[in-house]
């Protein structure tokens, strides 16, 4: 058990290290990703992708928050994705 905990801490440590190296900023490449691209990359990970036209603007706002919380997506990604879905429905 101790071993597992150590592994978990190590992982946390690596995360912290990565974070320090990046010094507070998301790399330029990731930052430059459009809402459409983030949608294409993230929304197919767990289930099939719903079409933007399946839901209204308000519904996408609700779903976006739901997925941000359930799937632990970053808030920044989610804002871009919801904006994309609202412009494409």
């Amino acid at each position, binding site marked *: 058990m101790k071993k597992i905990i150590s592994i978990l801490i190590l992982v946390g440590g690596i995360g912290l290290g990565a974070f320090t190296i990046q010094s507070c900023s998301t790399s330029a490449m990731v930052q430059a990703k459009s809402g459409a691209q983030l949608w294409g*990359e993230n929304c197919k990970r767990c289930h099939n992708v719903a079409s933007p036209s399946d839901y209204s*603007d308000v519904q996408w706002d609700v779903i976006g928050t739901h997925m941000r919380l359930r799937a632990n997506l970053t808030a920044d990604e989610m804002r871009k994705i*919801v904006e994309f879905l609202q412009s494409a429905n």
Partner: protein
Amino acid sequence: MKALKHLLVVPLVLAFLISPAQDSKKAKAKLSPLPGTTRMLITGSAWFGYQGILNNTTDTDVTSNFNDYGFSPVFLWKLSDRLFFESEVEIGAGEFELEFAKLSYMVNDYITIGAGRMLTPFGAYGERWEPNFVEKFPNSPMETSTGSHLHRGAIMGVDVRGGLPLGSVKMNYVVFISNGPILDQSNGMVQYENLLEENNNNKELGGRIGILPFSNSSLEIGFSYKRGIAGNQGDSVYKDVAASAFAIDWNYVNDISAIKSTITFRGQYNSLSVDDAIYPVDESSKAAGTYTFDNKQTLYFAQLSLRPSLVGNKFFKNLELSFRLNGLTDPQDAAWGAKDKNGKGGTVTRTDLGLTYWLSWKTSLRTAYVSTAMPDDSNTNEFLVSFVYGL
């Protein structure tokens, strides 16, 4: 325990550190100009199923049965930019149950506090893959032989969660405190889904850290841990008996253009360990002698799916072929669980071969051939069909 506390602190510190830098970039989400301010959505699914048992039966067994139906509405309310409520009710097959009812407060981009009855944030299966329109098979991955809800179901408690961008890597975390597992003091079985029937003051602590190492998010690996006292409050023998568990989950989804297909490779490995304790040989009289055993279980599943989503043909595009391997190993010397021919605890292996036709992103007709091999060398083969309608 101390180490666990440290583990829980890492993501929180991280979240607080980045929070001021990123908060300013908040862009207001565009909302519909239509009248009304309530932001809510009712969604969910309905299903029915058929089971055919193919072998290992006697003349009096029912081998052909429409064996499952149900309807699950999911209610979502975005109460404000920071407050969110979600709930699911399951109605079906003799059940009427509140699956979850959770209120979440988004403190900032990296920290959300949730409270209520929530799907267990231990591993990825319970929260992310169990909802029946996400599942690709007509059945679920194998549960422990005692139905302990080690890796699924709901907890009552509070959690803190968030997603963190770390350069081209992403990380996410959940930590939770909840009513904990309950030990059956007559035989050492543990039950996780107790909700309001708490048997002691100790609360379970746990969490999960997810890492997405590739910038295209195609892979996520999660590490989870939870620990809580399972014995009854103040009991002279069992009050310190704790159950701890860890899980490793993974999910890889990618389009492979060479085979014109989307592949999904996901799974979860769980290990449960209950502190050693003595149990009465005769459960009913508690008179005779006592025995103890190494109370450890492992449970896993791994599944690979292939959907030719990049081919032109409309029919083949919507077909998905899946294979899942499930395994469960029970304690050697427990009074319960799957036993081999010598009465020792053993391993149950189940293979699921599934073919699903997707009628929409949420609606599908699923079939599977399921073969279960018990440690005593007996086996069962089944054919399952289920229709899941996304609402």
